């Protein structure tokens, strides 16, 4: 086993033991402030089998995950093409950039009250907010990605008279894909943060709703379960995107090499 893994594992083991000792054995931390391991497991059992805040854990997870994926996809489907357009076409860039510069400094979370005003507490308001949040990183990084394409590549494509669609599919997108994926990762992160915040502000289901109700009930075990669930989902979706990136970019590298050879 590599040294890093050994030390990491030992650290986490020590932390869990410290957690157990300080809450359960010595009572250094009041149960109303931070839950003991037992209380956390009980809370997990509670939400898993009996349900809490309007649904079981699986239902809450499903609901949050669905909204994140929907919002993320809408943002990517609109953001990446806009970024490509702005990177490629100077006129479009000059036209859109100032509007973008005005909207960009508004933090994603600041859209939440407006979304609630417009669409209420349901799913559509969440998707709208996630869209706003995840849209900006998609656009900016795609735009920056197009700008990293080396001039000779573009000139060669132009000289060979590559048709526009083929040019987009075989030059523009592959060459900027490393940056596009950076943007997608940031977009995904923004999607999760925004969804959790939006659900904390007001929702009927979802992990943010669990956190919110647990806070009002002064239920530390459930708060911890909600936070861990959010962290695991964030980690899992990031990993899934990473896998996708590896596949997409390995193809891209091969294509780039073939093109160069």
């Amino acid at each position: 086993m590599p040294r890093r893994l050994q030390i990491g594992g030992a650290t986490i083991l020590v932390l869990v033991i410290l957690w157990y000792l300080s809450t359960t054995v010595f009572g250094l931390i009041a149960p109303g402030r931070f839950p003991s391991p037992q209380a956390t497991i009980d809370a997990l059992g509670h939400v898993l089998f009996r349900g809490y805040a309007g649904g079981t854990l699986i239902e809450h997870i499903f609901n949050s995950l669905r909204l994140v994926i929907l919002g993320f996809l809408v943002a990517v489907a609109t953001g990446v093409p806009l970024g490509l357009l702005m990177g490629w076409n100077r006129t479009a860039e000059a036209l859109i950039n100032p509007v973008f510069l005005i909207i960009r400094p508004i933090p994603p979370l600041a859209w939440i009250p407006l979304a609630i005003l417009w669409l209420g507490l349901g799913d559509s308001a969440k998707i709208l907010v996630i869209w706003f949040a995840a849209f900006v990183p998609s656009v900016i990084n795609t735009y920056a990605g197009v700008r990293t394409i080396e001039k000779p590549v573009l000139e060669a494509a132009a000289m060979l008279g590559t048709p526009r669609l083929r040019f987009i599919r075989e030059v523009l997108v592959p060459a900027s894909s490393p940056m596009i994926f950076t943007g997608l990762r940031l977009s995904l992160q923004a999607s999760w943060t925004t969804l959790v915040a939006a659900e904390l502000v007001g929702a009927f289901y979802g992990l943010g709703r669990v956190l919110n109700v647990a806070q009002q009930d002064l239920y530390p075990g459930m708060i911890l379960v909600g936070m861990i669930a959010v962290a695991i989902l964030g980690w899992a979706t990031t990993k899934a995107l990473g896998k996708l990136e590896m596949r997409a970019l390995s193809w891209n590298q091969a294509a780039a090499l073939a093109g160069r050879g």
Partner: protein
Amino acid sequence: MPKRIDFTRSLVLGLGGLIAFLGLWYGLSASGIVPPLFLPTPFEVLDRFIDLLDRRFAGATLPAHLAASFERFAYGFLLAAIVGIPLGLLMGWFRILDEIVSPIFDGLRFIAPIAWVPFAALWFGTGIGGPILIIFAGAFPPCVINAYRGAKFVDPRLIEAANMLGTPNRRVITEILLPASVPSIISGLRVSAGLGWQSLVGAELIVASTGVGYMMVQGQANLSTTTVMSGMIAIGLVGLALDTALRFAERLIERRRGMET
């Protein structure tokens, strides 16, 4: 090839884009296609913004709300920098610390800052302590990561040369490692200011009883779209000012080191 376009043309196009954007907004709301309750005209928002400068809403004027928000932000951000930068540097210099802290840090990183809201409220209340923890949660990771990178990627030849010349350890730190990490630290601070500011807005939407976020929630509850939008503008302006100031610091340091590109 994207064609270069000259400055006047891009200015005209940019203005055109802005006018089209504002015109569309105005048209939608003035013509009644979208009810003014949902989308007030840009002029109404501007009126309200100016009005809020000296009229109290949700307990204070807009500048007073902003001051309250900024105070929280300053504490949380400074705390993140004071704890995060030394931690990152030490992790970069001492492998064992890196191996111990990294697994904990990586686990915590996936918790969206906003998911700390329930514990923040439980531990520190909703006045200033709770929001500070949330800002800290948002601003801390970039401080650590960039200080770590700065320390890790110091040119090893510099350290080898210093060692060969018999430089004492303390001087290696103050004269090589620290200066070499500064640019990375500054860009980390910029990222963390952005994330901290955004987390603050989220925290205020949910738990606070003063601040711009709180003002926006009250605006939303009173169906005052103009107030919500004024809040968004104020948040965007402050965020932009913060970013500009730190960007300026970044440039200044790069220039002093002759690293200007």
